[in-house]
């Protein structure tokens, strides 16, 4: 029997993977994909909870999340392109001139 707990556990695992990915990857694009993974983990939780409770709000929320994520991609990619033009790299570790 697959319960809500299982779904939530899965989404938590996904969230965790995304978070760890954020920390270990250097390519800005991949780092960003990890964030997307985290967002989608949350989406999964919403859908599962929505289904479990028989409410529509959760499913609706996922639309919001997806839309926001899409907008985020638009902003993020634009930024990365701009940086790549200036710095010729997308390695986040090389972007550390501001510190202290």
């Amino acid at each position, binding site marked *: 029997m697959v319960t809500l707990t299982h779904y939530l556990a899965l989404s938590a695992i996904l969230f965790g993977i995304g*978070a760890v990915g*954020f*920390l*270990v990857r*250097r390519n800005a694009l991949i*780092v960003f994909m990890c964030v997307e993974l985290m967002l989608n983990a949350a989406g999964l939780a919403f859908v599962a909870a929505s289904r479990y409770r028989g409410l529509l709000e959760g499913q609706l929320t996922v639309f919001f999340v997806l839309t926001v994520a899409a907008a985020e991609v638009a902003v993020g990619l634009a930024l990365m392109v701009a940086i790549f033009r200036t710095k010729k790299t997308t390695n*986040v*570790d090389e*972007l*550390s*001139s*501001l*510190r*202290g």
Partner: protein
Amino acid sequence: MGALFEWSWLIIAFPLLGFLINLISTGQTRERTVGVVASMAAAASFGMSVLVFAALLARPPEARLVEVSLYRWAIVPPLTAEVGLRIDPLSTAMALIVTLVGTLIHVYSIGYMAGDPHIRRFFMFLNLFLASMLLLVLADNFLVLFVGWELVGLCSYLLIGFWFEVPYNAWAGRKAFIVNRIGDFGFTLGLLLLFWTFGTFRYGPIFEAVEHRAVEAGVVTLITLLLFAGVTGKSAQIPLYVWLPDAMAGPTPVSALIHAATMVTAGVYLIARAHPLFAMAPFVQGVVTLIGAVTALWAALIAVGQFDIKRVLAFSTISQLGYMVAAAGAGAVGAAIFHLGTHAFFKALLFLGAGSVIHALEHAHRHPGDPSPFDPNDMRRMGGLAQRMPLTFWTYGIGAAALAGLPPLAGFWSKDEILISLRGIGGWATLAYGLLLGAAFLTAFYMTRQVGMVFAGSPRSHAAAHAHESPAVMTVPLGIFAFFSVVAGWINAPGLGALSAWLEPEHPPVFHPEQALLATLIALAGIGAAWAIYRPQAWPEGVEDPLRPVLRGFFTALTRKLYVDELYDFLFVRPFEKVARGVAEVVEPYGIDGAVNGLARLVQSAAGRVRRWSSGYVRQYGLSVLIGAVLLMFYILWMLR
């Protein structure tokens, strides 16, 4: 006559007025005018004192106490402090002595200080001193007495350091003030205890309370002991006498007036004034008497080894003050004041005589234009002045004889009375008596030595050879003082006893012929011993002092004042400097300020460590966020347990 007493404050006001006139008058005033104004102020004060004295004399003995309230100084519950004068036999006697000696010395100073660029300041200070001293003497309570007490100290300080360009003079003035302040530390505490014991500073109620035994003897013992600490400072007693020899750095009239005749006797006056208190504390009386006697002997001993003409007199003053203190301690107020009066005359005479000598030597030295350093005070450079300065010599001789206690001069009578007063009490008084007899021998000895070195024989320096007698403005006061040095003793001579009758009618002076004989013999012995050593024939050429081969090392110790200054320097001065430096250079910067700055540095270094957190790496920032989140999760789990 009652109205006259209401004006008795004029005694103080005249010199104060003189001070103010000279303060306000511009620098253009002629120096002669300055001196005359000051002298007239002093003379007016003397005149007023005489009037008051006469008015008091006109009263029956039991009514010879007038309290004059001047104004309310402060009312702070429970304290009500008034400035008031107490006109009674003791205070008028003191006022007479102070104003008489003061007037004469003012006049003398006109000649002595002539030509000094700061003469205006000199006379200002002198007038101020006179006013302060009279305030001290005439006050009707301890607080005002203390005010005068400190102000005379101030004037003493200012006048010792009068020629302030010479570092030693300034140093000596400072030393005098500080040593006095140390004594006054005790005095202050005594005053505090006095107030909280009696609830007032006024003599009248305090003496009344003592009379009725309204207070514990233990407290009074402590009070009088503390007051006596002030006395040891002002009246130069062991252990605080060390400032007086250095006070000779001041102009000679100052030494005569302040450091011989008047200010230094303030301590004796205090004991006399507070006699009812001391009478209640026999233990303190013993201490006072003994310290006075030891001081008398100790200072006389040191005087033997001095070469500075004024220093000999300074130690002599300390010694004579010892006599007075001893007598006052033993309760013989009359004898103490008697000696105070006679001493004022003959010691002033001696100082002024010494001043005359110094003045003469200085002028004689200046004439040939000799640039070599010359100390006009050094008796080793004198000799043979008897022929060149006869007036000075004769008057000086009278003063010395009076000091040595030769009958029938003033010193004989007063010293005799002190010695008699110590007899028959027993115990410590007997010891003091013995010590004072020894001091009497030494007194005769060192005075003979001094006269011998200064006036006898042949001149030992160019200046001494060319010295001339001083002008009349100086020699006339010498004559007057010499006159008093002869006759002053007679006012209390047995049979006459005027002073005693005035001060303490119930104690007429007594006369023991065997005592007089003993004292005279001792004085003669001292003179003889000194003459044997110092007569010109016995003094080989080139020898600094014929006593040195006799006493050998001990004489060196005497010349070094028995190393007391060195001892104090080692025990107090240097440790104090060390502590002060330690506070300012170690405790403050490293301890207190160091703690403050250290705290600031600690915060900064901690901040520096935390700052490294902001490394610039995004992933590390993310890690920080994640760690925060994980910690929160653990917290939630912990809460859920």
